[in-house]
């Protein structure tokens, strides 16, 4: 055997492994739900992932064009910003929040949907815990609910995690074979048009069960946050970066929150964008206004949204959106 023969055999081996791997994913995608659950638990192939309001959001997103206000970020975005409040002001709003969406996920979603949605104002929710994670769960959630696309492939290549790469194939095969899971919402949840999820379930007086910790932002996510702000400004969108409310108990767990807040303030200033922590703007009840430790219920949202509208007005953002919305090129 010479070097050439070795390289050829090596390439053949790698190709065979790749082909067998994809075949196994296809087989897994066509398996029964019970078997899929076992495959998902013990292997790197995420098949049979449950679909929820995120799927409904992306279905509605297909038809959405030229909106006035876009909310984007993690589950904090989709459970805090109720687009119906904007309808009262004749503004079209859409909430593109998805579970565990990190700045990396946000960047690639915006790259794909900005030219379609052409938002006048973007409310960028940047929850501190999403700055710490790698975007694996966020990418899988988008892929399983909407299906794979170039944006999720880019996300997968950024995470470099086999599960996320496999999710592209498994989601594709599940759709091809008509084996995608049915969309199911939790009994206490209602999907409202515009991407928002309404729930009235109260959190109650529970213990968080978590220890105090430092928030350590991942530098790659911070870079993506900065790239996102640059991208939005390049599309001539007005931007406000926010922290959505969480319970006081939850907030107290993050020991160095002031430092992280300082970093985000510096970042927003460098991009000439406002950064608002809504926790400071409104007083809420940990037990009654939240559905869990870090997500509002409708009672809380109804307290937060009027305050948020005022914040937008204070920053002259609502007026600007109104003016642009009425502009003739619209």
């Amino acid at each position, binding site marked *: *055997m*010479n*070097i050439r*023969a*070795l390289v050829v055999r*090596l390439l053949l*081996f790698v190709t*065979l*492994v790749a082909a*067998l*791997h994809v075949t*196994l994913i296809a087989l897994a995608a066509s398996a029964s739900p019970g078997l899929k659950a076992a495959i998902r638990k*013990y*292997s*790197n*192939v995420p098949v049979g992932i449950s679909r929820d309001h995120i799927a409904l959001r992306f279905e509605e997103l297909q038809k959405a064009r030229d909106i006035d206000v876009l909310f984007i970020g993690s589950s904090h975005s989709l459970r805090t910003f109720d687009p119906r409040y904007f309808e009262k002001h004749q503004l079209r709003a859409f909430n593109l929040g998805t579970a565990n969406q990190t700045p990396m996920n946000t960047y690639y979603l915006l790259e794909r949907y900005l030219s379609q949605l052409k938002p006048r104002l973007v409310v960028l929710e940047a929850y501190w815990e999403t700055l710490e994670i790698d975007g694996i769960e966020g990418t899988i959630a988008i892929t399983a609910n909407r299906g794979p696309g170039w944006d999720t492939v880019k996300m997968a290549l950024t995470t*470099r*995690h*086999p599960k996320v790469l496999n999710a592209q194939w498994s989601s594709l095969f599940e759709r091809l074979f008509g084996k995608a899971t049915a969309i199911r919402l939790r009994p206490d949840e209602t999907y409202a048009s515009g991407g928002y999820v309404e729930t009235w379930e109260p959190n109650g007086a529970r213990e968080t069960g978590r220890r105090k910790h430092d928030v350590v932002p991942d530098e790659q996510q911070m870079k993506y946050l900065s790239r996102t702000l640059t991208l939005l400004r390049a599309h001539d969108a007005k931007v406000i970066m926010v922290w959505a409310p969480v319970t006081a108990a939850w907030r107290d767990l993050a020991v160095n929150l002031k430092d992280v807040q300082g970093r985000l303030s510096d970042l927003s200033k460098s991009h000439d964008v406002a950064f608002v922590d809504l926790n400071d703007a409104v007083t809420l009840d940990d037990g009654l206004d939240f559905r869990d430790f870090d997500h509002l219920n409708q009672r809380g949202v109804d307290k937060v949204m009027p305050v948020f509208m005022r914040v937008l007005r204070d920053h002259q953002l609502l007026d600007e959106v109104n003016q642009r919305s009425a502009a003739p090129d619209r």
Partner: protein
Amino acid sequence: MLFNSFTFAIFLPLVLAVHWGLSSRVRLQNVVLIVASCVFYGWWDVRFLFLLLLSSALDFTVGLLLDREQRQQRRKLLITVSLVSQLGLLATFKYFNFFIDSFSELVQTLGFQVNVPTLRIILPVGISFYTFQTLSYTIDVYRRQISAVRDPFAFFAFVSFFPQLVAGPIERASRMLPQFSAARSFVPLTAVEGLRQALWGMAKKVVVADNLAPHVNSIFQNYQSLDGVTLAWGGVLFSFQLYCDFSGYSDIAVGIAKLFGINLARNFRYPFFATNIADFWRRWHISLSTWFRDYLYIPLGGRQTSRLTSARNVMATFCVSGLWHGADWKFVVWGFLHGAYYLAWSWVRPNRVEPVAQQPRPRFVPTPTELIGIATTFALVTLAFVFFRAESIGHAYGYLLRGVTHPIEPIDARSGVALAYVFPLVAVEWTQRHRDHGLDINHLLVPARWALYLATALAIVEFGNFGEVQFIYFQF
């Protein structure tokens, strides 16, 4: 840079292409290896490159001077310089805070109040490995067992060779320097053998070790609410985790080295099939145990002395070996236990020649005596590994005490899933135990070989844990 990382998957083919692109110009090939090793090592912390270069430069110079010097007193001075500076660096970076803390605790135990400041020192990755490797060189030159190398590139390539730089095998200059000094040419069959061994090592690391890690972590963290059976299972799983993690690394290192035409020493020989503790130490971390044998145990007198002195030598060697693993008393206890096992065994069977490791082809079905020996040795080794894995001696003691006081309780938390990783490993290794590694299958027909390679690769892809989990032995 980790072997099980995406970065390394790009790095290795690039280095191989440049290395073999230089044909057989050995000096240039060594330069490529040195640069690649610096990139590989500097990926963690570029500051520690300086330490590696300093350590290498010092022993290269001492080696040359030792070779030239005829006066015994001067030679002694030179070897002392090498020993003191190399061990001094190791002591500073690895043991400074340990010694300070231990001294402080001792003084407080005697009833005095003391407030000794400690330093915030980061442990340079692999310092214990490369320090021992360069030390073996100067000691061998001092003993006139080898001549000093005059080519600095060959020496630096030997010390910094990236496949084995951070977790061994700890190589000897007598074996390695000739390989870095002579022309190397690409031998495809050797490369294939290297790829096979690396594939097997990767499977052990990412499929077995990294998937066992969460089970082990959970059992050791929550031991206070678990029963003896589960705790024993936790110990067994940790034994397999550690073995697969470290021997997996060694297999990958040996395999990658073969791709560069370099033969590294064998570091593991199916240690869990050892029939007694002496046999275990001929199979586990062979490069370290032979290092301690040649440079500590034998110089102390070995067993060519009285029974008591011989026992002292055994215990000292094992305790120092324990301390080598980490700056913590729990490692000393681990070494002490092995020393005690070894002494007990050597007193029971003083002149026993161990046949199993050397047997060309052992029987597939073991004899009852073999089986009892294997089970007993594994149990003793696992018991000692509890100290290795625990956070502290107190943690290990609590773990073992809990196992004794709560032997069996109805607990829902037991999971047999980990068996799915352990059982295939044991089956493959038992079948292959007279061969070099699990994928040493040259005797099989081509289709069977390819089927096994594909099955191993697919096991890695489908079941591997790719969280870029560090290798346990990096911390040593």
